[in-house]
């Protein structure tokens, strides 16, 4: 199965931090390419076709957002962005531009490893087509039959609640921004109406979570979006 170890591209301008990450990643048997600028990163991505990109948003030459936009024109390479704290709007923008996940500095390398693993797993899983059943903890969703169970108990969801849940399942384990959810569930004209999302997310939690104030599955990423737990956290 493990014929070739996955190739990661790390675009980070701080040399110490780059060294730390590449050492850590290599110790986990990943092959690592590094770039210190956005330009360099884009060229390396084109030439070596890595399996995953770890991108620092603050780069000396071109904006990290721009790197994501240019890359997304020709590649659906998974991207994890790194950002400073208190920059929720930056993160949201990066995710809306097509990044797949984010981490705020400082972060523990253990979390980075689990995110990388999850992303790589999603990519290998994808060609298999649509999933039949999604299951995490007590929660079981039969996607094609549109049936939802908590434990043995079947739960009735409204169409919108079910659609919302489906979008989250499609990105299970990853954060989906408010904008993406509003656009996919309600349509492009609703992207500014975030209160729809809050109200339906509340309803969904009350139907699916044992304690809606301390959700286990439908997790809030404050200021960014929502993440459906895959059961690892």
């Amino acid at each position, binding site marked *: 199965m493990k014929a070739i170890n996955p190739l990661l591209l790390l675009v980070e301008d701080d040399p110490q931090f780059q060294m730390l990450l590449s050492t850590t990643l290599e110790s986990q048997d990943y092959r690592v390419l590094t770039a210190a600028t956005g330009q360099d990163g884009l060229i390396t991505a084109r030439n070596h076709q890595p399996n995953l990109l770890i991108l620092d948003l603050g780069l000396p030459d071109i904006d990290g957002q721009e790197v994501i936009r240019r890359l997304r024109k020709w590649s659906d390479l998974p991207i994890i962005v790194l950002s400073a*704290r*208190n920059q*929720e*709007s930056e993160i949201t923008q990066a995710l809306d531009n097509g990044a797949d996940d984010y981490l705020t500095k*400082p972060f523990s390398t253990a979390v980075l490893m689990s995110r990388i693993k999850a992303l790589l797993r999603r990519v290998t899983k994808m060609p298999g087509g649509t999933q039949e059943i999604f299951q995490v903890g007590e929660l079981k969703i039969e996607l094609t039959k549109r049936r939802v169970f908590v434990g043995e108990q079947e739960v009735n969801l*409204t*169409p*919108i609640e079910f659609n919302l849940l489906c979008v989250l399942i499609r990105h299970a384990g990853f954060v989906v921004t408010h904008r993406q959810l509003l656009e996919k569930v309600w349509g492009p004209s609703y992207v500014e*109406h*975030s*209160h*729809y999302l*809050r*109200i339906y*997310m*509340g309803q969904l*939690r*009350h139907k699916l979570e044992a*304690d*809606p*104030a*301390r*959700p286990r599955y439908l*997790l*809030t*990423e*404050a*200021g960014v979006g929502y993440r459906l737990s895959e059961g690892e*956290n």
Partner: protein
Amino acid sequence: MLTLVDWPFREVLTPSNILLVYLLGVFFVALRFGLSPSILASLTSAAAFAFFFAPPIFSFAIADQENLVGLAVMLIVGAITSNLAENIRHQTYVAEQRERRASALYRLSKALAEARREKEIIEVGVRHIHAEFDGRNTLLFPDDNGLMRYPIEPPLAISLQGVNLVVTRWVFNHGQMAGNGTDTFPSETAIYVPLKGSTGTIGVLSLEPINVRRIFAPEQRQLLDTYVYLIVHTLERANSAELAKNATLKMQVETLRNSLLSSISHDLRNPLATIVGAACTLEMDEERLDKSSRKKLIAVISEEAQRMSDLTIKILEMARLEAGEVVLNRQWYAPEEIVGSALRRLDKKLKTRPVNIHMADNLALIHVDAVLLQQVMVNLLDNADKYSPAGRPIDISVVTMPLSLSITVADHGPGIPTGLQQKIFDKFFRINEESAQSGVGLGLSICRAIVEAHGGEIQATNRNGGGTLFQLYLPLLECPPTIDPEEKG
């Protein structure tokens, strides 16, 4: 007219009495109308007397010698009384003018005394000069480089018309009057008066009076000088008050910076020393250390680095809030979600700590910056966890009140000593300075800054039966938006 009054009595009254009546008339005229009319009145009276009363009647000739003498006396007395009356009139006028000026000055000084800021003082000055000297005027001051400029906001909209900056600069540099009515720049329509303060000329008054000559009358000049003196004096006083205030503020900032520095240096130096020391030991004595010591050192580095990271984040957060850089990104959120995401961020720490949540199911959405408010909750919960004995629960409750949402976080810790319930929100304040548990003393200050930015309030009280109760109120100003009901289908 007096002739008509006297005519019926010509048989009764002697001519000398009739003369007295005329004299009375002349006197009144003098009092009322001044010198020239009164002299005219005495002359016409004399003529009328000669014509109508002194025999022969209806002729200017006077037969009786006595009447002739009487008439002469009347003329002389008339002239003298006219003069006297005129003097009285003039003195009354002068006194009235003086009184008017005095009351104008009084009004000005009263208005100036009420004005606090420089802008108000200038406005008061311009308005009063306008009222007294009847002309457009403005007060101009040099910019920071000492160069005269047009004011950015003119005190009165029309007052800047006709102001010549060249003349203004000349007056400012020479400290002398110029413009209309003077020897320098006489072709200007306005008069330019230097505003002389205790340390030299501080500005220039430009005045465009309707009647220029009136301004140069001695009394008016004196009054103008007094006006200028009063305004300049008030300005200087306000400036020195401002300087004193700035000095106090600077001192406070200095004190704050010192306490920040000492606090940061204490809180950052200790973990740094540990990290550097542990890393050095690992680097140098790698072979000599056994596995468990190595592990211990690595754990110490990791822990201390985490602590430093937390502190740095808090310090930066506070600095950001203080600098006013934070713009609230308000959106509609469910209170439940904010509490939930805060609890989730503390998942690891709260693993063994029971948390009771009391919250109605259908709380209305609140319009807040969720990231910041989540930070408030994290700080409060973190504190509650830090200071409570293991195993005792933290109680969270969220209640909607008529005009606000109240969120309480209560613990079973030692509580806050009385008198310190307010102080704990101050920056760098710690109840127990030496305690290893306490952080940098910024967590609650950050909470307060965020809650106040939302227009809310936060307070700490001691809980019945022990422990601390933090309560925050967020105003419910707007009605949450509604959503279209979902079509069943």
